[in-house]
C-alpha cells in the first residue's frame, strides 16, 4: 500500500511537471511563429513529436506503473485468495473426512439394517412356523371341542333326563314336605298352647310361692309380735324390778356408809385400847418397881439406924444429925412417894380392871361388830355384784329400748330387731338365773361362815375355860421347858462359832482339794480322749527306750565278744592268705612291668640315639634336652620345649647362641626343626672329620 501511495505522489509530481512543460512549450510557440514560420514549423513538429513521445512515454510509464500497481494488487489479491483457498481446502478436507466417516457409518448402518432385516425375517419365519403350529393345534382343539360338545350335549340330555326324574321326585317330596309342614304347624300350635299353659302354670307357681312366703312372713311377723308383746311385758316387769333394785341399792349404800362409820369408830376404839394397854403396862412396871423400892427403903432405914447408933458413939453429932435429918427427909419423901405410888398403883389397878372389863366389852362389841361387818361386807359384795348385773341388765334393757325406739322410727328392720330382742331376753333370763344361783350360794356360804364363826367362838371360850385353871401348872412346866431349851440354845450357840470355824476350814480344805483336782466320784467321772498326745508321747518314748535297750544289749554282746578274744576261723585265715598272695603277685607283676618298661624305654632311646644322632633327655615341664652324637662336649646341648598344642620351640642355651645362622635359616625361614638338627649334625660331623 505504501508503494501504492508513493506512486500516487509520484503521479502528481509528474503531472505538475507535464503542465509546466506544456506551458513552456506554449509560451515558446507564440514568439517563434512570427520570425521563422517554416523552420519553426518543422522544429515545432519535432518538438511536438518529442513532447508527444515524451507524453506517450510518460503515459506509458504511468500505465506501466499502474500496471505494476495493478499487478501488485492482483498479486496481493491472489495471495489472499490462495490463503482463502487453503482455508477452504482445509475445510473441504475436514468435511470430506467427515463425509468419509459418515459414509463408513452409513455402510455400517446399512450392514446393521441388513442384519436386522435378516433377523426379522428369521423371526418372521419363526412366527410363521409357530402360527402354523398353532393353527394345527387349533384345528385339533376344534376337533376335540366338537367332540366334547357332542359329549356335553349327550350328557346334557342325560342330565335333563335326570333332572326330569329329580323334578318328579322333588314334586313328590314337596308334596310330602307340605304334608309334614301341615303336621309341623299342627304340632307348633299344640306346642304354643302347651307353652302358654306351662307359663300360666309357672306364674301360678311363683304366685303360690310368693303367697306362701308372704304367709310365712306374716306368720313370722305374728310370732315376733307375740314375742315382742311377751318381751315388753317381761321388760316392764324387769323395769319395775330394776326400780326396786335401785331403791335397795340406795339402802345398801346408806348401810355401807353407816358400816364405814362404825369401822372408823372401831379403829378409834382400838387405838384407845392400845393406849390404855400401854398405860397399864407402864403401871404394872411401876408396880413391879414398888417392892424393890420398899426393899431399898428398908435398907435405907437400916442404914439410918446404924448411922444413928454410930452417931451415938461418935462425936460428930451435928454433922450426922444434919445428914440424918436430910436422910429422914429423904426417907419421908420416899415414903410419901411410895404411898403415892401405891395409891397410883391401886388406882391404876382399878383402872386396869375397869379397862380390862371395858376391853372385854369392847372386844365383844368388836367381835359382834366385825361379824356384822363381815356379813355386811358379804352382803355388800353380793349387792355390788347384783348392782353390776343390774347395771348390765339396765344397759341391755336400755339398748333394747333404744332398738325399740329405732324400730318405731325405722320399721324396715323389724325381723333383725326382733331377733336381737329375743337374744337379749334370753341373755337376761340366763343372767337372772345366774344371779339367783349366786345369791343362793352366797346365802349358803354366809350361813356356813356364821356357823363356823360361832363354832370357833364356842371352841375358843371352851379353851379359855380349860386353860384358866391349869394355867399356873402349865406355865411352870413351860417355864422349866423354857429354861431347858434356853440352856440348850446357849450350849448350841457356844458350839456354833467353833463349828463355823470348822466348816470354814473344811470348805477351804475342799477348795484346796478341788484346786488339786479332787472330785466326788459318786456323781462325776473323769474321761479323756483315748488317743491323747501325752499317751502317744509316752508310748513313743517307751518304744524308743525299748529300741535303745535292744541296741544296747546287742552292742554289749559285741563288746563282750571283743573283750573275750576273737577266735579266728579257718575260712578267714585262708581268705587272708589268698588275699596276701594275690597282693604279692600283683606287686611282682607291677615290678616286672616296670622292668620291662625301663628296658624298652632304654632300647627305644638307644635306637633314637643311633638313628637320629641325638640323645633326648626329658627334663621337667615338658622340656627336652638334645645332645648330638658328634658334640664336642656335654655342655653343647639344645633345649626344646613343647607347648600345649604340641608344637616345639627352641630355647636359648649357650650352644644355641653360637648357631644363629642355622637358626635363622632353618627355623625362621624354613620353619623345620628336623632340617635344623640335621644341619647341626652335618656341621659337627664335618668338623670332627676335618679335625
Amino acid at each position, binding site marked *: 500500500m505504501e508503494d501504492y501511495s508513493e506512486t500516487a505522489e509520484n503521479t502528481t509530481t509528474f503531472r505538475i511537471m507535464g503542465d509546466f512543460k506544456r506551458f513552456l512549450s506554449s509560451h515558446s510557440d507564440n514568439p517563434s511563429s512570427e520570425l521563422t514560420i517554416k523552420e519553426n514549423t518543422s522544429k515545432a513538429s519535432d518538438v511536438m513529436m518529442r513532447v508527444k513521445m515524451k507524453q506517450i512515454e510518460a503515459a506509458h510509464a504511468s500505465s506501466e506503473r499502474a500496471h505494476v500497481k495493478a499487478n501488485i494488487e492482483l498479486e496481493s489479491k491472489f495471495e489472499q485468495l490462495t490463503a482463502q483457498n487453503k482455508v477452504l481446502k482445509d475445510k473441504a478436507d475436514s468435511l470430506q473426512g467427515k463425509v468419509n466417516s459418515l459414509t463408513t457409518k452409513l455402510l455400517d448402518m446399512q450392514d446393521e439394517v441388513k442384519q436386522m432385516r435378516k433377523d426379522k425375517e428369521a423371526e418372521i419365519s419363526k412366527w410363521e412356523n409357530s402360527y402354523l403350529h398353532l393353527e394345527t393345534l387349533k384345528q385339533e382343539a376344534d376337533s376335540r371341542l366338537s367332540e366334547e360338545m357332542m359329549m356335553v350335549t349327550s350328557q346334557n340330555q342325560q342330565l335333563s333326563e335326570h333332572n326330569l326324574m329329580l323334578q318328579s321326585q322333588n314334586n313328590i317330596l314337596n308334596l310330602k314336605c307340605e304334608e309334614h309342614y301341615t303336621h309341623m304347624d299342627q304340632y307348633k300350635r299344640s306346642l304354643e298352647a302347651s307353652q302358654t299353659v306351662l307359663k300360666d302354670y309357672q306364674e301360678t307357681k311363683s304366685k303360690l310361692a310368693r303367697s306362701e312366703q308372704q304367709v310365712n312372713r306374716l306368720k313370722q311377723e305374728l310370732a315376733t309380735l307375740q314375742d315382742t308383746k311377751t318381751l315388753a311385758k317381761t321388760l316392764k316387769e324387769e323395769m319395775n324390778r330394776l326400780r326396786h333394785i335401785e331403791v335397795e341399792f340406795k339402802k345398801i349404800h346408806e348401810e355401807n356408809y353407816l358400816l364405814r362409820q362404825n369401822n372408823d369408830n372401831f379403829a378409834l376404839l382400838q387405838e384407845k385400847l392400845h393406849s390404855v394397854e400401854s398405860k397399864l403396862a407402864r403401871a404394872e412396871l411401876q408396880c413391879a418397881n414398888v417392892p424393890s423400892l420398899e426393899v431399898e427403903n428398908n435398907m435405907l432405914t437400916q442404914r439410918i439406924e446404924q448411922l444413928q447408933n454410930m452417931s451415938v458413939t461418935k462425936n460428930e453429932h451435928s454433922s450426922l444429925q444434919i445428914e440424918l435429918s436430910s436422910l429422914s427427909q429423904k426417907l419421908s419423901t420416899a415414903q410419901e412417894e411410895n404411898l403415892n405410888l401405891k395409891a397410883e398403883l391401886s388406882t391404876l389397878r382399878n383402872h386396869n380392871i375397869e379397862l380390862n372389863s371395858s376391853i372385854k366389852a369392847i372386844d365383844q362389841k368388836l367381835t359382834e361388830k366385825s361379824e356384822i361387818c363381815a356379813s355386811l361386807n358379804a352382803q355388800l359384795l353380793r349387792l355390788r355384784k347384783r348392782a353390776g348385773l343390774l347395771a348390765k341388765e339396765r344397759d341391755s334393757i336400755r339398748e333394747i329400748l333404744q332398738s325399740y325406739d329405732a324400730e318405731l322410727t325405722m320399721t324396715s328392720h323389724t325381723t333383725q330387731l326382733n331377733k336381737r330382742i329375743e337374744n337379749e331376753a334370753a341373755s337376761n333370763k340366763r343372767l337372772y338365773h345366774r344371779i339367783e344361783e349366786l345369791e343362793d350360794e352366797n346365802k349358803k356360804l354366809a350361813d356356813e361362815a356364821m356357823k363356823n364363826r360361832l363354832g370357833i367362838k364356842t371352841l375358843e371360850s371352851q379353851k379359855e375355860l380349860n386353860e384358866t385353871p391349869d394355867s399356873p401348872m402349865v406355865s411352870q412346866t413351860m417355864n422349866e421347858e423354857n429354861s431347858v431349851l434356853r440352856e440348850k440354845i446357849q450350849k448350841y450357840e457356844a458350839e456354833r462359832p467353833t463349828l463355823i470355824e470348822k466348816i470354814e476350814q473344811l470348805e477351804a480344805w475342799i477348795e484346796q482339794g478341788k484346786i*488339786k483336782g479332787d472330785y466326788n466320784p459318786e456323781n462325776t467321772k473323769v474321761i479323756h480322749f*483315748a488317743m491323747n*498326745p501325752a499317751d502317744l508321747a509316752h508310748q513313743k518314748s517307751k518304744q524308743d527306750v525299748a529300741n535303745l535297750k535292744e541296741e544296747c544289749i546287742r552292742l554289749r554282746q559285741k563288746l563282750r565278744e571283743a573283750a573275750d578274744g576273737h577266735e579266728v576261723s579257718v575260712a578267714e585265715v585262708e581268705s587272708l592268705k589268698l588275699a596276701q598272695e594275690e597282693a604279692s603277685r600283683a606287686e611282682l607283676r607291677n615290678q616286672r612291668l616296670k622292668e620291662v618298661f625301663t628296658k624298652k624305654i632304654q632300647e627305644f632311646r638307644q635306637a633314637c640315639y643311633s638313628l637320629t644322632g641325638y640323645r633326648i633327655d626329658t627334663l621337667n615341664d615338658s622340656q627336652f634336652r638334645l645332645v648330638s652324637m658328634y658334640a664336642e662336649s656335654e655342655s653343647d646341648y639344645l633345649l626344646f620345649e613343647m607347648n600345649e598344642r604340641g608344637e616345639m620351640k627352641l630355647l636359648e642355651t649357650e650352644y644355641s647362641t653360637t648357631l644363629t645362622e642355622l637358626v635363622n635359616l632353618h627355623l625362621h625361614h624354613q620353619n623345620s626343626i628336623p632340617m635344623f638338627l640335621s644341619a647341626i649334625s652335618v656341621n659337627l660331623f664335618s668338623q670332627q672329620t676335618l679335625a
Partner: protein
Amino acid sequence: MAAAKQLNKITLKGSAAIVSEFFFYGINNILYQRGVYPPEMFKQEKKYGLTILVSTDETLLTYLNDNVLPQLQGNVMLLSSVLPLFCQRQQLFLQIEWLEKGAVKRLVVVIRESETNETLERWQFEIQCESDKSENGKPATKSKETINSEIRAVIRQVTATVTFLPLLECPCSFDLLFYTDKNLEVSEKWEDSSPCLIPNSEEVKLRSFSTSVHKVDGAVSYKFSM
C-alpha cells in the same frame, strides 16, 4: 434398738461357743508358754486384743478340733448359722453339746513327762453353769466386750504364771481331762482316766471369767520340789 439389745443377749449356745473358743486359745497359750511343743510350731494370731500363739501342727489341731470332739463339726456349722457373732472361727474347741448340757464340770490340761508319765502340772478350769437365771426368761446382759476383757485377763495371768512355775526340763506332753456327769454317754474314743493328781503339789488360783451363763474358774497346781 431392739436389734442392739438382741446383740447383747448371750444365749446358752453363744456362751458355750465363747467358752469353747476360750479353751482353744487358752490351751494353745499354755502349750506355747510351757514349752510343751517347740516355739517354731506356733504362729501368731490376734484374739481378745492380744497376740496369742496358736499351733500349726496338724495332728495337734486335729486332736483339738476333730478328735477330741468328733461330733463338733456339725454343731459348729449349726452354730455358725445361729450365732455369727461368736463363731468367727470355724474351728471351735470343746464339746459344745456337753457345755450346753452343763455336763462338763471341769476341764484339766495335764502336762506329763513323756518318759515316766509323771504329772508335772495341772491347769484346771472349773466350769459352773449359771444358766438357771437365763432359762427362767431373764436374758443375760453381759456385753461381749466385758467378757472378752475378762478372758484377756485370764490369758494374761496364764502367761504371767510362767515366771514362778518350775522349768520343764524333760520332754513333756499334754492331755485333756474332762470331769463330766457320771451318766454322760460318750463315744468309744473316750475312756475313763485317773484324775492325774500331783502329790505334794503347790496350787495357785487364777482369775475367773463369766459369760453370765457359764463361769470359768482357773487354777494351776504343779509339782513342787525343793
